[in-house]
């Protein structure tokens, strides 16, 4: 591409500004004769959109002015190196908020949970096919994130979004490498190296999502990317195996502490085996749709694994996702099981709290540090697995140990010899609950498949529980 001079860039930018300005016309004025709380909320939303629109235009105006000055300076004989440096400063300052972060001021678009999934499903059904196709083509981030839309639609939109985000991350990586090669001062070197590390982490996580959805029967039900989060942690996704819109049984797995989308390919392998064990007509979902707490966040009161903050935010998102599965179906309801591991069990319980997800039939907590006073589902539909040697499951950090709570049925994680001669492997520690061929995974499969009578029961009480009882006396 031939480099554009400041004068040519100003002409192009002026035309783009006019297009952008016209878009704001749709936000002029209030919706006529609409009053009440909903009207006020809509007005606030419109006002916020108008402010962001004005900020964008002001930002463009600032750059237009800088381009004009650069054009005049070059024409007036100012050394190009001086004009280049001055223009670079102006360009660096644009597109950021007052604190120096990337604009816009509002959080990134994360439509999940923004509107009622039943309403979304009705709205989508009422659109004509051309409008649906246009939205899917032009606004993949919106369509892919709307709980309540058909899985196939979300999958197509999210795959398009994934390709865009991968392209953007690759371009960012190339730019970061070039910056690193250019800088000479120590502070610049550290900054550039950090930027390169960050963008490579994001690229790796996006590649993991791409690997996870690269297989028959896979569907990318959600994808959200916030490039400003560190270590690529701003990549959230939900990947299904099987058709959640038609399956008779759907199991939704939520992970816990230190997890991220980088483990999706391995998790999908486990969920494939779980679905096979559950029986025909089963779909599973690896739901990595919240920012799981990380090790370096333990001291942050808002993000710590020791607090409920991430679980409550994740619970709202998970509830919306689960309601969306229900809303998107046109046939009979599925039998839905929510499965939460470790801190993911706290998230799952938050999603099932009163006022939360309504369409979940069974819940299974794996290696849970407690889920609060109520297990989330009635007796006979709330299950817990605690493996021997799992220290997390003995903490009772978030309430009573679920394997001792009334109304919760314990499932075995020990080695079991079946009547047909097969031996299911025992699990040990905190991370092997879904290992294919284990008693634990087979039991979870039985619940997900609507066959709890086939599960091997066990309270999972071990040395940790006995020790804690001694200390509680």
């Amino acid at each position, binding site marked *: *591409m031939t*480099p*554009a*001079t400041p004068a040519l*860039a100003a002409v*192009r930018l*002026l*035309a*783009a*500004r006019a*297009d*952008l300005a016209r*878009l704001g*016309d*749709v936000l002029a004025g209030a*919706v006529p*004769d*609409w009053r009440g*709380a909903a*009207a*006020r909320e*809509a007005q*606030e*939303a419109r006002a916020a*959109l108008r402010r962001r*629109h004005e900020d*964008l235009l002001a930002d463009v105006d600032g750059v237009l002015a800088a*381009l004009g000055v*650069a054009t005049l300076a070059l024409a007036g004989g100012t050394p*190009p*190196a001086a004009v*280049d*440096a001055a*223009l*670079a400063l102006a*360009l*660096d300052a*644009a*597109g950021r908020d007052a604190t120096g972060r990337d604009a816009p001021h*509002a*959080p*990134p*678009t994360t*439509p999940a949970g*923004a*509107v009622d999934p039943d*309403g*979304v499903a009705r*709205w989508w059904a*009422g659109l004509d096919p051309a409008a649906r196709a*246009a*939205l899917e083509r*032009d*606004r993949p981030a*919106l369509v892919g994130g709307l709980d309540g839309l058909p899985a196939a639609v979300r999958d197509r939109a999210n795959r398009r979004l994934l390709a865009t985000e991968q392209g*953007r991350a690759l*371009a960012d990586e190339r*730019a970061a490498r070039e*910056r690193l090669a250019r800088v000479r001062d120590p502070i610049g070197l550290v900054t550039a190296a950090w930027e390169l590390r960050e963008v490579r982490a994001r690229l790796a996580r996006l590649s993991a999502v791409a690997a996870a959805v690269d297989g028959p029967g896979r569907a990318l039900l959600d994808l959200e990317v916030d*490039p400003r989060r560190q270590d690529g942690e701003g990549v959230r996704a939900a990947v299904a195996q099987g058709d959640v819109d038609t399956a008779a049984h759907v199991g939704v797995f939520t992970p816990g502490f230190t997890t991220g989308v980088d483990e999706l390919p391995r998790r999908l392998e486990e969920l494939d085996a779980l679905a096979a064990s559950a029986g025909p007509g089963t779909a599973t979902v690896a739901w990595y749709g919240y920012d799981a707490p990380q090790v370096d966040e333990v001291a942050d009161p808002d993000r710590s694994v020791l607090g409920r903050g991430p679980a409550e935010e994740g619970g709202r998102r998970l509830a919306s996702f689960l309601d969306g599965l229900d809303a998107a179906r046109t046939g009979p309801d599925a039998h839905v099981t929510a499965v939460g591991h470790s801190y993911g069990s706290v998230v799952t319980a938050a999603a099932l709290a009163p006022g939360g997800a309504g369409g979940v039939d069974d819940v299974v907590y794996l290696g849970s540090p407690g889920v609060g006073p109520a297990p989330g589902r009635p007796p006979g539909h709330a299950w817990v697995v605690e493996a021997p040697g799992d220290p997390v499951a003995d903490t009772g950090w978030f309430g009573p140990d679920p394997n001792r709570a009334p109304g919760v049925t314990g499932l075995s994680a020990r080695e079991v010899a079946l009547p047909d001669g097969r031996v299911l492997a025992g699990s040990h520690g905190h991370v092997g609950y879904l290992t294919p061929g284990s008693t634990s995974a087979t039991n979870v499969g039985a619940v997900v498949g609507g066959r709890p009578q086939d599960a091997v029961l066990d309270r999972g009480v071990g040395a940790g529980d006995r020790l804690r009882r001694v200390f509680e006396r």
Partner: protein
Amino acid sequence: MSPAALQAAGAACVAAAGAAPADGPAEGVRGLAILPAGRAAPAAAALADRWEVAVGRWCDDLAAHGAALDLAAAAYLAGDDDAAGVLGGGAR
């Protein structure tokens, strides 16, 4: 309150967002350079990326707001005032 007016306002937002080239201002500065190895060129490329994200997100939120208005209109038409009451905002 006219559900039709509400629906029209929502449809206008969705249509405007759909018609918007998210890369408009970004493409205005992408490729800008004064010197072959100068600082303005990478600064312009980085600004183009920031603007592409910012305008894209604003368009997404505009479409979400339009969808919310459309949803509220549909709920009013169905006589479900309670549902309509929680569907006003859309864009977060």
